[in-house]
C-alpha cells in the first residue's frame, strides 16, 4: 500500500514537540499520551510497517511496566530503570524513526528548499545508499570466505584476529572503490555546480499537514499541563 508521508516540516515539528514534552514533563508514565499521538500519526501516513514494529515493542514495555508496578517484578538485566527509560523515550523514537525513513528524495527536496549546501545534501543521499550497499558487500565477502573454508568454527576460534582481517581488508578496499566511483559519477553529472539545487519532488503543505501541526502543538501543550512541568 502506498504511504502518504506528511511534509518533512510537520515531521520535524512533531520531533521537536516530543523532545520538549519528554524533557520538560514531571510525569514519566503519562508520556503514553505522546506515544499514542505518534502511533496515530504513523497510521494516518499509512506507515503500517513501522506502526507494527513499534506497536509490539511498546506493548511489551507496557506489560513489563504493569508487572513492575503491580506485581513487584524485578529483572536483573533489563531493570525498572531501563523499562521506564524506553517507555519515556518511545515517542521520540517513533517520530524520529518516521522522519529518517522518509524517502531520501523527499528529504533532499526539503534540504534544498531550506538552502542546505549541495555537498551536505549529497552526503545525506550517499548515507542512505551506504547501508544496503554494505550489506550486500558483506554478504559477498562472507560467501567467498565460506568458499575458501575460512569460516569453519575451528578457524574462527583459533585465529579470531586473522578472521577479522579477512573481513575487513576486502570491505575497506571495496569502500574506497565505491567512494571513488560514486564521486566520479557525481562530478560527471554536475554535482559541483554552485547554484541552488532543484528537486524532482515538491511537497507543498496541505490541509492534513496543517491539521497535524495543530494536533502536535496542542497535544504537547495539554500533556505538559496535565502532567506538570519539571523546572
Amino acid at each position, binding site marked *: 500500500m502506498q504511504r502518504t508521508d506528511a511534509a518533512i516540516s510537520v515531521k520535524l515539528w512533531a520531533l521537536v514537540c516530543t523532545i520538549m514534552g519528554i524533557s520538560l514533563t514531571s510525569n514519566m508514565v503519562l508520556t503514553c499520551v505522546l506515544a499514542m499521538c505518534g502511533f496515530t500519526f504513523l497510521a494516518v501516513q499509512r506507515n503500517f510497517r513501522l506502526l507494527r514494529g513499534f506497536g509490539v515493542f511498546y506493548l511489551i514495555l507496557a506489560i513489563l511496566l504493569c508487572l513492575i508496578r503491580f506485581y513487584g517484578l524485578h529483572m536483573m538485566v533489563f531493570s525498572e530503570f531501563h523499562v521506564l527509560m524506553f517507555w519515556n523515550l518511545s515517542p521520540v523514537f517513533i517520530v524520529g524513526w518516521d522522519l529518517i525513513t522518509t524517502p531520501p528524495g523527499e528529504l533532499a527536496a526539503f534540504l534544498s528548499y531550506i538552502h542546505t549546501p549541495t555537498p551536505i545534501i549529497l552526503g545525506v543521499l550517499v548515507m542512505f545508499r551506504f547501508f544496503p550497499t554494505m550489506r550486500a558487500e558483506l554478504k559477498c565477502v562472507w560467501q567467498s570466505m565460506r*568458499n575458501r573454508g575460512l569460516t569453519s568454527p575451528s578457524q574462527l576460534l583459533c585465529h579470531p584476529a586473522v578472521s577479522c582481517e579477512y573481513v575487513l581488508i576486502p570491505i575497506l578496499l571495496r569502500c574506497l572503490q565505491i567512494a571513488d566511483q560514486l564521486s566520479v559519477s557525481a562530478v560527471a553529472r554536475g554535482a559541483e555546480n554552485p547554484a541552488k539545487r532543484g528537486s524532482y519532488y515538491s511537497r507543498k503543505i496541505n490541509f492534513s499537514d496543517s491539521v497535524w501541526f495543530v494536533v502536535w502543538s496542542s497535544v504537547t501543550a495539554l500533556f505538559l499541563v496535565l502532567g506538570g512541568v519539571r523546572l
Partner: protein
Amino acid sequence: MITLKKVSFHYKGSDAGVCDIDFSIKDGECIVLAGPSGGGKTTLTRLLNGLAPAYYPGELTGQILFNGKESVNSKSYEIGREIGSVFQDPKSQFFSSELAGEVAFACENYGMHTDEIRKRTDMAIRRFDLNCFRGHSLDVLSSGEKQRVAIASVYALHPNVYVCDEPTANLDDKGSTHLADMLQKLKKEGNTLIIAEHRLAWLAQIADRYVYIANGRMCWEKTAKQLAEMSDTERDIFGLRIVDKIELGSIQASVENTSPVLSAHRLSLTQNKKTIFTNQNFLLFSGQITALTGENGAGKTSLAKVLTGLTRESSGEVQLFGKRSAPSHRRKTIWYGSNDTATQFFTNSVTEELLLQSKKTPEVLERARKLLKDLGLYKFREVHPASLSGGQKQRLSIACGILSQRRILIFDEPTSGLDGINMEIIASLLKDESRKGTAILVITHDKELIQRCCNFVINIDKQ
C-alpha cells in the same frame, strides 16, 4: 565537433597515460575506442568528459577543443552539461534507491525548476521504456536494466555528446542488444557517441569509425567497412573480439563410458516466496568443460551457489561421484569463483593469496610458481592483489581455484569485462586444467569463450 591536437596526459605519480593523440569527432558521429585493457581507452574517455585532469590529477599537454573552445578552461559542471558520461558498473553510480530520483539527479544538480525536472525525467523514463520500474528499488534490477537507468539519467540532461566507458562489461547478450537499441536512438537524434569497448559485436550497426589504442598511443583508425574487411588473423593480432555476431555451432561432446562426477536431480530453489529456478537436471563429467548460459536474472549464479553448497536447495538433490552430498560436503569439494573479484582476496600479496589454506609443501610451492609463470603473474607475486588490473585479478582468482585441488571448479563470468587477449589466456588455462581430469562449469554469456573451450552447453530459462 571535438578535436584533439597532440594530446598527452600522464596521471600524477604514475607512468600510465596517453601520448600524442590526434583525431577529431564530427557532430552526430559514433566513434569506438578499441584496444587492449590498460591501453589507455579509459584515460581517453576521461579526457573527453573532463574528469581528467579535473578529478584525476595529472599533466596534460596539447589541446582538447570542444566546439572550438578549449575544455581545460571549463568547469566540470559546464562540461557535464554538454557531455554525458556512462560508466562500466551502473550499480555503484546510483545516488538514489528509486527510479525517478536517480533519473532526475543530474537535472537537480543544475538547479532546474521542479516542473522542468519532472518534464525531462518523465520523458527520459518514457523514451527508454522504464515506466515499469517505478516504485521498484533499483537494487533489484538486472545489470542491463541498471545500465538503462544510468543512460536515462544522463539523457534527462539532454547533452549532445555521450561518452561511454565499457558500458556492456556487466551485460549479457540481451542487455547488450537493448543497449545497442538505446544508443541507436541517441544517434538518430543527432547525438555524438564515443564508446570505449573491446566487445565489438554489439556495435556493428552503430559505429562509424574505430580508433585503436594500445600502450597509450593511437595505432590506427578504420571505418566500419574497413574493419569488417579485416581478416581473422589480423584481428587476432590486435586482440579484437569478433565483429559479426556469431551463432553457436555444434559443440563436440565426447563422453564415453564415464560416470558423471556431479549430477543434479530435479534441483529447485525458492527464495522469499519467489521461484529462482525449478527442476534442473544435468551432469558434469570429469575432464569436460561445461558452459552454463541463460539471460541475466535467469538464476545461473543462484544455481552455482546451490551446487557449491553456499545456498541450500529447496528441493531435489546433488550427487557427487554417485553419492548424495550435503551442502557442507559440497563446499569442501567444489570451488566457486565469483564474478566479483573485489571481495575475493584476503591477503597482502599474490603469493600469499594463492597459498592461503593450503599446506606449503615443496610440491605445492612448485605448482604455485609454475601457475604464476603460466599466467604471466610471476613478476607481480609480491604485489597486493587489489593493485592488479581486472584481467589479472580474474586470472588470480582462477589460479586460486585450480590450486585448491578441488575436483570440480565452478567459475562465474570469468571473462566479463576482459579483452580478447585475456579471454584467450583464460580459455587455455581452463583447457589445461580440464585435461588433468577436473570437471569445470563456467557460467558465461561470452560466446567466444564457449567456442574456444567448452564441450557442453546447459541453458537455463528465466522463470
